[in-house]
């Protein structure tokens, strides 16, 4: 099979489809993997292939159509050779993702309404969230992720990508390389999480390897998991004689200097090479290599770094930044699988759920349901089923599912956990499977996380070889099989009943509960579903005891929580803190406040199900109850900091755009209600809102919340309700014709102030729509009728002479 993607309709190849049917299967439940294979080969789903598929399998034409149109991974029209996915997650949205998308669209010269350029080279899409929130705006082209993209940078990125295409030799930077080396005294640790790679750590790694080889240094390069300090990436850690030193925001050119700063070549020849190199470099560069090293060095004692770390408490992400994700021996050497052994050898099966119950661990996926109670319920239903003389079947009696369908835009905790702590999650799942008697454990991971999928598949493989997974695990009578299911792009599948439907090969439409999955879940069997982070906490609790876990956090919400801190924050990243930490502590102490000296306005927590908590409520402790009390929700733990330049009505509109698209479309209130709410918000943002609209919006929000079947619909109005509650004056300002943050396009104009004295023409050159006439040496002007408010000129102006004026004011002049 060729890797070349087709941009034509005629590549219908029945033999290839037959081969897929033989490998993947012909059952109705195999429809999603089959469609994924077709999509992978053709870049879209050609009609003749789908017809052939329905004629040669148990999948009905209705199901092929129903399922392939439900999941956003699938497309039905030909796509370009390369896919540009502009992330429009929350963090990217507040940093101008829509403008970036428009810019790509313009650069490619796509026709109005089309998403592919005329040559069929690129297709540009908006995607829900790539989980690289600290690099906002993130843009993915095929398997390369670009971070910190601006509207002005689109052209350069396309050029860079095409350049790489020419030089690339098949392999990609992030390819996993299981280099084992346990001598930890001298090593260079490079984090290779998806977002680190996107910010350039793979390039840094390549240079490090080159440097080490060139001077034959006694150092290992080691891949480690996420370091959490996403705001400082690319980041490497050098361990020299056991002592650690971090270097942050490095460029590939900095790497040799950093390495040579710690390790001197041993042989005379290598020293000579080194001397020549550094001398030559100091001639060429304005600053010599060694000072570069000290410039980039960050110390654990540095106030900023210390602030980032000292309030954190690591349970789920224990040993973070120090372990090679797939090095199972290293995991074992740090106490890995001890908790599992304890369960298998020392504890009574019935005690495990009790310990969990004692610990007070609550599900980390959003709603905070006590994990112990869930486990007990599954166990209870499983034993009931066992006692009834049921038919003998090959299917297990109890299933376990790890929910890694992290769909919340603005959250990437699960991705990081899966990429950096695969064994930790697997151990948690093994303990759970043992406790509830599950025969099959399933990882459900969203397809937008290819690296996480790769790591988990590799980790399962290794565990099978080492008898942590499979039959008679570690000499016990306990057996469990692990499988990985790839999500196909549907936020609603984070809801457990929808997730189960998706595994069964159906549209991911949530079901009315009860029955809960604990009673009747996957294939009608009792099923335990927990989130990745929940499972990651389990081994720690078993190893350290329920009491110790309870001593952390708050009485109602014990333990810690992993958060993705993103948005307008100075020091964004992945953090794990005790529950009960205040918003203020997170934003100011850990996050170092708002970047660029702007004023902290609100924190968005919990994504589309959560809400916006205003700066004035910064002393609110973060736990399940308090957040719910404030109208927000823990969600999976995405924290997006918003500053004074963010429009709260726009934020509400942003989330409603998301939910009305992600709703499964079943319930009238969710399907139509969210659309109508969005219609009202668009009207308000467009400057046409009325006081009556606000009332209707509020009433609709309450109605959708109270009459929807699943969590998505019940929580979808939260972003609207919280912004209406805490920022009503902004809605009212919009109604009287002004967007106070100057964000809503229809309510602002761009104008050039008298600061523009030189007439430097930069704005005129960068303007993508020729709205600024080329007038050298005299003050520029903007043609408002042509201006698309893309903000490129304002960002480019060296004199800060371009300002945003409320339309109302501009009209009055």
């Amino acid at each position, binding site marked *: 099979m060729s890797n070349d993607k087709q941009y034509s309709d005629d590549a219908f190849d029945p033999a290839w489809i037959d081969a897929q049917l033989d490998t993947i299967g012909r059952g109705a439940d195999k429809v999603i993997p089959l469609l994924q294979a077709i999509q992978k080969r053709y870049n879209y789903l050609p009609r003749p292939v789908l017809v052939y598929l329905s004629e040669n399998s148990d999948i009905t034409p209705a199901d092929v159509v129903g399922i392939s149109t439900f999941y956003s991974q699938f497309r039905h029209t030909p796509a370009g050779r390369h896919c540009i996915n502009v992330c429009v997650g929350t963090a990217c949205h507040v940093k101008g993702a829509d403008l970036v998308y428009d810019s790509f669209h313009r650069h490619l010269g796509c026709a109005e309404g089309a998403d592919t350029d005329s040559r069929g080279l690129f297709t540009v899409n908006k995607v829900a969230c790539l989980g690289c929130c600290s690099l906002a705006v993130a843009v993915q082209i095929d398997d390369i992720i670009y971070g910190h993209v601006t509207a002005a940078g689109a052209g350069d990125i396309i050029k860079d990508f095409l350049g790489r295409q020419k030089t690339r030799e098949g392999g990609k930077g992030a390819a996993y390389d299981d280099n084992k080396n346990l001598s930890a005294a001298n090593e260079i640790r490079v984090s290779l999480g998806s977002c680190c790679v996107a910010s350039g750590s793979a390039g840094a790694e390549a240079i490090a390897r080159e440097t080490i080889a060139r001077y034959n240094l006694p150092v290992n390069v080691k891949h480690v998991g996420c370091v959490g300090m996403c705001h400082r990436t690319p980041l490497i850690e050098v361990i020299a004689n056991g002592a650690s030193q971090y270097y942050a925001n490095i460029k590939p050119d900095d790497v040799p200097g950093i390495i040579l700063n710690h390790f001197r070549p041993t042989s005379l020849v290598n020293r000579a090479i080194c001397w020549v190199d550094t001398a030559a470099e100091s001639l060429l560069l304005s600053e010599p290599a060694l000072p570069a090293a000290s410039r980039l060095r960050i110390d654990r004692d540095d106030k900023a770094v210390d602030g980032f770390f000292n309030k954190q408490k690591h349970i789920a992400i224990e040993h973070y930044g120090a372990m090679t994700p797939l090095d199972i021996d290293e995991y074992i050497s740090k106490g890995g699988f001890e908790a599992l052994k304890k369960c298998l050898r020392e504890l009574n099966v019935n005690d495990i759920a009790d310990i969990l119950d004692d610990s007070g661990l609550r599900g980390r996926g959003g709603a905070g349901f006590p994990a112990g109670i869930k486990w007990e319920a599954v166990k209870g239903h499983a034993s009931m089923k066992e006692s009834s003389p049921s038919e003998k079947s090959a299917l297990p009696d109890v299933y376990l599912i790890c929910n890694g369908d992290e769909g919340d835009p603005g959250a990437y905790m699960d991705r990081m956990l899966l990429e950096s702590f695969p064994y930790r999650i697997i151990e948690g799942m093994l303990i759970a499977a043992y406790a509830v008697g599950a025969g099959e454990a399933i990882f459900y991971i969203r397809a937008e996380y290819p690296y996480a999928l790769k790591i988990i598949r590799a980790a399962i493989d290794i565990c099978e070889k080492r008898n942590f997974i499979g039959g008679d695990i570690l000499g016990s009578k306990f057996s469990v099989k692990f499988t990985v299911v790839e999500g196909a792009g549907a936020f609603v599948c984070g809801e457990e009943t929808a997730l189960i439907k998706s595994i069964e090969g159906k549209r991911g439409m949530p079901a009315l509960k009860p029955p809960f999955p604990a009673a009747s879940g996957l294939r009608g069997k009792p099923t335990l579903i927990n989130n990745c982070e929940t499972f990651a906490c389990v081994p720690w609790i078993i190893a350290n005891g329920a009491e110790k876990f309870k001593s952390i956090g708050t009485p109602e919400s014990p333990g810690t929580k992993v958060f993705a801190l993103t948005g307008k924050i100075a020091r964004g990243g992945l953090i794990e803190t005790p529950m009960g930490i205040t918003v203020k502590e997170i934003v100011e102490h850990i996050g170092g406040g708002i970047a660029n000296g702007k004023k902290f306005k609100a924190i968005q927590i919990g994504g589309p199900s959560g809400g916006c908590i205003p700066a004035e409520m910064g002393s609110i402790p973060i736990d399940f109850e308090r957040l719910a009390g404030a109208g927000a929700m823990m969600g999976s733990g995405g924290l997006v900091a918003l500053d004074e330049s963010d429009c709260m009505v726009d934020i509400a509109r942003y989330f409603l755009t998301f939910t009305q698209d992600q709703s499964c479309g079943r319930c009238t*209130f969710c*399907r139509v209600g969210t659309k109508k709410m969005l219609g009202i918000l668009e009207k308000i943002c467009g400057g046409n809102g009325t006081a009556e609209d606000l009332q209707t919006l509020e009433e609709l929000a309450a*109605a959708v919340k109270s009459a929807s079947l699943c969590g998505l619909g*019940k929580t979808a109005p939260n972003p609207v309700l919280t912004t209406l509650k805490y920022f009503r004056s902004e809605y009212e300002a919009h109604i009287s014709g002004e967007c106070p943050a100057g964000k809503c396009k229809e309510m602002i104009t761009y104008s050039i102030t008298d600061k523009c004295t030189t007439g430097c023409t930069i704005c005129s050159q960068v303007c993508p729509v020729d709205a600024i006439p080329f007038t050298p040496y005299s003050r520029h002007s903007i043609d408002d009728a042509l201006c698309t408010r893309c903000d490129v000129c304002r960002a480019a102006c060296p004199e800060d002479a371009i300002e945003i004026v409320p339309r109302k004011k501009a009209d009055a002049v």
Partner: protein
Amino acid sequence: MIQLIIDGKTVTANNGATILDAARSAGIYIPTMCHDDKIEPPVSCFICVVKVGGRDNFLPACATKAQNGMTVDTCSKEVVDCRRRAIELMLSEHTGSCEAPCTKICPLGLDIPEVMRRLQSGNAAAALDSAMQIIRRDMPFPATLAYICPAPCQKGCRKAAGDSAVSIKRIHGIIAEKIMSAPFYDNKINITPKHKNVAIIGSGPAGLSAAYFLALKGYSCTIMEKQPFIGGTLRSQFSELVLPRDILDAEIGFMAATLGVRFFVGTNVSSIDEVNAYDAVIVASGLQTCLDTFSTDNPKIFACGSAVKPVQQAVRSAGQGKSAADSAHNYLSGKAAPLKQFFFNTARLSAEETESLAGSIPYINKLSTTPLAPNNEEDIDTDTLMDIDADMDSESSRCLQCDCGRKDSCLLRTYAAHYGARPSRYAAGSRNQYARETYGSGLVHEPGKCIVCAKCVNLTKEKNIKPGLALSGRGSDVHITAPFDTPFDKAMGTALTDCVKGCPTGALWLTEKQ
């Protein structure tokens, strides 16, 4: 068996029964739209919501299992409000019209599309006969009106956009003429006498109309006219050239001879006491009436026409006479006044949408090969028509039949009326695109009227039909589709009848076999 309390009433139900099952078995009514006994509850429409004790949110009765000790509320204000909102949300997406705009505009509510459909069915004589019945049902003196009606109906005709309005008045005129000469005129009316007497004061268009409709229902009607002649403004306002007197006289004669209406001329009624012996009184005495004389507080007195407020057109007066007759009938038969009828209407259709209507007219007489006659909008002199049958056939075939095929059985319309829903409550944002597709099997599919309850999808799945219907898309874009461009009727296979029967709105319906 379990016990629960529904609206304060103790109800027993089987284990595993839903709240809906339990309520139904106890004779407690809960409305449903997407529910169907043949399939698992789709749980989509949320019209069946109830409140369960201890829960904040509303639960769908169709899928929520009844539990022992549960208390259920099916009719409190908040439940009713929630149902109304569900309907209003569905209506906010809806496209099409319950009644065609022409019917809605006609003061008499003449079902014009139905007349056109009947003209398109079967052979010419039978078609005309059948169309006549509708005219007779809806219009009190059709031949007279054919001369004087200003045809407001034509102003609303959707065919006017990009073409010209269907000549409704011309067709009406031809049928009216046939009525005058048809044997039907005398003997095709069966009336069951009700042995109740109604006095009608005034013999103008309002009074004649009220008498006509009441007499059709079997009431003994007596018209009292102050003037020495019958007809009021019909005679005083229109010259003989405009309205030939033989036409008017013939229609009045029909009322007297066939419907048994009694007329007294030169009879001035100046107080209620004079007509107190009657079971009901209709005051249709025109401008000169002082309404104070006939207190409308008296439940048996009904006023209409210019007696209430000056009316310019005779057809409007006739329309009011018709409603007064309806009110009097309700009063006399002891029925509560029926719910105000609900009308949904998408005011403006795009050119594309109108085209979709024009390309999918459900009832077209396949025998008709006559090319469409050019039509001019002005009133047409019925005498100049040459080939009446052919012309009428082609002209009636121009009707878009833009009323709803399910106007009498649409649950959305029924519940909208029942719960007092406002169709434009949630106006912000877009509505569905209007489209209509008519298939050879007689199936009509109008996706803009679909509430996406997926009942039809589940019914085809239940019967294992290939290809079957599918839900396509996600979120607010979800719609029902037939896979791989299969015709809709083919995709439903043997489940077609069930799907059509089950469809709660006008999204799926069948034309009668021609």
